[in-house]
């Protein structure tokens, strides 16, 4: 290809490149076309901003939700009681008794039947509601330890019918694992005294005369009311 020919080629090519429009052709409205383009450019920026706003909002929501979720998990009542039961089943009885003795909050007393105690399956306070089997005189007994202030709170918030605490606890347990059923007759009483003994005046009281001439007498009235034996002192005139 000669130099002249090459120049010619460049000529018609450059002609086409420089072409800015056709003679009879309607020109494109540049302003409208640029508006379209500008809207596209601006629209993308806006969408990015919006995306950041949404991300920030999601983070904030998550931050508020996390403590709530953990709090709920911590005080899940049924799960807590189940775990405690499992632990108690695994532990030997003597360890349980030792634990009970060490625990300053636990009160071991005679079995008290609480008539209007309300314990809902979903609202049992794990910290205040304990079932502690205690071995006394080769008999296993179940005692409830309930702090009265907590009981009052439970009564206010609960709309269920009053039920016996032991049976309510049994209801919270999973169907596969049941507590050992113990009849009241098997439980017995901390101090077994037959009604005949209480009624007989001569058997109801006794007197002790010590060397210091002090006489200790036994009061049946006090015994009947609280179940504890009270010694009263009475000095003899002799």
């Amino acid at each position, binding site marked *: 290809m000669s130099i002249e*020919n090459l120049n010619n080629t460049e000529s*018609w*090519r450059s002609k086409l490149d420089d*072409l800015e429009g056709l003679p009879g052709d309607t020109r494109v409205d540049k302003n409208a076309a*640029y508006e379209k383009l500008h809207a596209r450019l601006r629209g993308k920026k806006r969408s990015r901003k919006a995306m950041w706003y949404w991300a920030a909002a999601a983070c904030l929501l998550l931050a508020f939700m996390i403590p709530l979720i953990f709090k709920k998990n911590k005080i899940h009542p049924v799960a807590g009681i189940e775990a405690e039961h499992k632990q108690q089943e695994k532990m030997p009885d003597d360890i349980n008794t030792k634990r009970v003795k060490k625990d300053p909050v636990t009160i071991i007393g005679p079995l008290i039947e609480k008539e209007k105690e309300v314990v809902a399956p979903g609202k049992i306070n794990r910290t205040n509601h304990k079932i502690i089997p205690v071995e006394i005189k080769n008999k296993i007994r179940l005692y409830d330890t309930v702090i009265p202030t907590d009981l009052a709170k439970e009564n206010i918030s609960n709309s269920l019918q009053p039920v016996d605490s032991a049976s309510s606890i049994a209801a919270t347990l999973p169907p596969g694992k049941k507590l050992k059923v113990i009849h009241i007759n098997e439980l017995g009483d901390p101090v077994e005294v037959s009604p005949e003994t209480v009624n007989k005046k001569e058997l109801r009281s006794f007197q002790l005369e010590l060397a210091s001439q002090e006489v200790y007498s036994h009061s049946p009235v006090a015994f009947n009311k609280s179940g504890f034996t009270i010694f009263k002192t009475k000095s003899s005139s002799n």
Partner: protein
Amino acid sequence: MDISELIKEAKQGSSAAQKCLFDLLADKLLMICRRYVKRPEDAEEIMLDGFYKFFKNLSSFSYLGEAALFVWLKKIMINECLMFLRKKNGFNIVSDSDVPDIPLEEEALNNLSAAEIFNIVIQLPVGYRTVFNLYEIEGMPHKDIALLLGISEGTSKSQLSKSKVLLQKMLLQKGINYVNRKSQ
């Protein structure tokens, strides 16, 4: 305002500078797009897509001169056109190996105005037009054209030969017998 300054301001996000650049280059680039895509509406959309990409990637562009800027923009527009054609047509071009290679008569084309050349080129079928544009106008080798369009080199060559034959016929119809001119 100088183009280099406009580019600088457009890089900083100035809408006014972007508008100036658009006004300066839109016509030329639209004609390039129309050489590949026949419908003016499609060509306009492609041009806007090209400008959008240009403004988006302007930060990575270093200004070396007006010619370099135009070459870069032209490349963007051609790529956009080819993407559009690939989507629309898929370039299902069948190769004809027995088509003889006809030399393009440059002199005859030189005697035509830019508008006349443009009108002849856009009347070619899509396959012929695309290969003709890429080989004869942009100066791309057949290997690159084959890669770009996803066709074989032989197909690219045959398409070019056919386009030249058709172009010759068109020129003859217009009363311009450049073959005769060649013999003169």
